[in-house]
Structures are given as C-alpha cells and as structure tokens.
C-alpha cells in the first residue's frame, strides 16, 4: 500500500470546514424550517461525518478493502434500520377488529 502522509494544512482545511458546519447546523436548528429541520440537521451531520471519514481517517487515500469494511458497517446498520422500520411503519395499516 502506497504510504500517503496527509499534511497539517490539509487537516486544517477540513477542520475549519467542520467548525463552520457545526455553526451552520446550530443556527439552522434554531430556525423553524418545519419538517426540513430534521433533514438539514442530518444532511449536515452526514457531510461532517464524511469529511472525518474521508480525510481524518484517510479513507480518501485508502485501499478498496478498507472502504468495503467501512461501507459494510454502515450498510448493515442500514439493514437493521430498514427492516425494523418496515414493521414500525406498517404496524397500524391493518385495523384491529373491534377497535
């Protein structure tokens, strides 16, 4: 594996973006965006998380295998949420007889 040393400058850029996004999400959280508050908060969180994973954790320069491992962890969490929610969302679709 080719060694890739990330410079302090590159880290600093990412760091500043993360701080700006933290400020952004805090400000956006205090505004009333209706149903979009959740969406904005999560989108910003995902962007921040991606920045940390890609640059602080070097996935941007890493092997396919490392990426596969990272993606599998997230994908399996997705499975857990997805199939649990199929139950939770459809629980009330069928009325209870006599109720």
């Amino acid at each position, binding site marked *: 594996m080719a060694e890739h*040393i990330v410079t302090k400058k590159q*880290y600093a850029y990412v760091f500043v973006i*993360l701080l700006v996004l933290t400020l952004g999400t805090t400000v956006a959280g205090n505004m009333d965006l209706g149903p979009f508050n959740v969406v904005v*908060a999560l989108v910003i969180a995902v962007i921040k998380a991606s920045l940390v994973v890609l640059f*602080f*954790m070097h996935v941007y320069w890493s092997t396919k295998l490392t990426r596969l491992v990272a993606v599998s962890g997230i994908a399996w969490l997705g499975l857990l949420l997805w199939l649990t929610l199929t139950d939770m969302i459809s629980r009330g679709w069928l009325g209870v007889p006599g109720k």
Partner: protein
Amino acid sequence: MANHSLALRHQFEDVAQQKDASTLGMWIFLATEILFFGGMFCCYTVYRSSYPHAFGIASNHLEVLWGAVSTVVLICSSYFMACSVNSAATGYRKALVGFLVLTILLAVAFLVIEMSEWYLLYKEGLMPGVNFTYKGIDPGHVQLFFCMYFAMTGLHASHVTIGIVILIILAFRAYADVFTPAYYTPVEISGLYWHFVDLVWIFLFPLYYLIARHLQG
C-alpha cells in the same frame, strides 16, 4: 525497541504486511462499533418517529450551547489527533507528544462538560431510574427520551474514557521515542478509533440537541 525492524512480530513476513493487518483489524473493529452504537441508534429512530412530540419537548430541556461547545471541543481534539498522526509520520517527536497532550486535554474537557450536563439534568429531576420527577406532558415518552439520551451519551462517554487511557499510554510511548516514520501504526490506529468517537458525537449532537429546537417557546 531501539531497532524498529525488531517491532516485526514473528507471524508476519514483513513490516508492510504487519501494518496493513493492524489497520484492517482496526477498521473491522470500527465496523463492529458502528453496529454496537447502531442498536441504540435504531431504538432512537423508532421511538423518535413514534413520539416526535414528546421527544421535542424533552429535547428542549438540553442546553444547546453546551452541546455545540462539546461538539467543537471534540472536533478540535480530533484535529489535534490528526496532527499527531502527521507528526508521527514525519518523525517530529516533540510535536507528536504535544499534539497528543492537546488531544487528551480536550477529551478531558469534553468529559467535564458532559458530566456537568448530566449533573444538571440529575438536579432537574430528569435522570430516569435515579431521579426522575418530570410531571409535564407525556412523562412516559419524555422518560424514554432521557433513557436513550443517557444510554447513548453514556456509551459514548465510556468510549471517550477508554480513548483517553489509550492516548495517555501512547503519549508516554511517544515521549520514550518508540515511534518513527517507519513504525507508527499504534498512533495511526488509535487515531482511527479517536476519529470514530468524534464521528458518533457528530450524530448525537443534532439528534439530541437540535432536532426540536425550533419548537421551543
């Protein structure tokens, strides 16, 4: 440990193989960690989607300012950890030790803030199982919110604590000049762990502190 080719353990053929194996091992461990926290994130998702109103009320009992400060503290800590890895890779021992100490100090600061928050919630009677006296709207589901809050931040705080212990050991070893540009895998994989801890908080912050902020007042 003077000669770092000696850091090669007998089961490996060469240093590159050893480094690759350690990094891969850490990533697999982190995949495990995703699902470890994932079980709780799943509970949170289900309950929040079922009782958004109660979760909104409960969320407004948290201090958003302290949540944001914690986030900044942890991101700074993560940044200094990244700088530690860079210093180790380029062979600056003093910088490595310095950055590690900064990382540790910020981690401790994070824990202090978090524990103060816990203490305030305890005083307010919002700590289920210990002191829960909330009598407002929908106490059952507000209780559920705080159960999940303490379980998740508690699990996260335990990871921070473990991280601090690892980083202290690392700082002492760095001070003893164990790491060189040819051998700094422990710094790198501890860094991965530390960034993961940051990552979890990046989600905990909006999910607990922000999502219902606009419903306030």
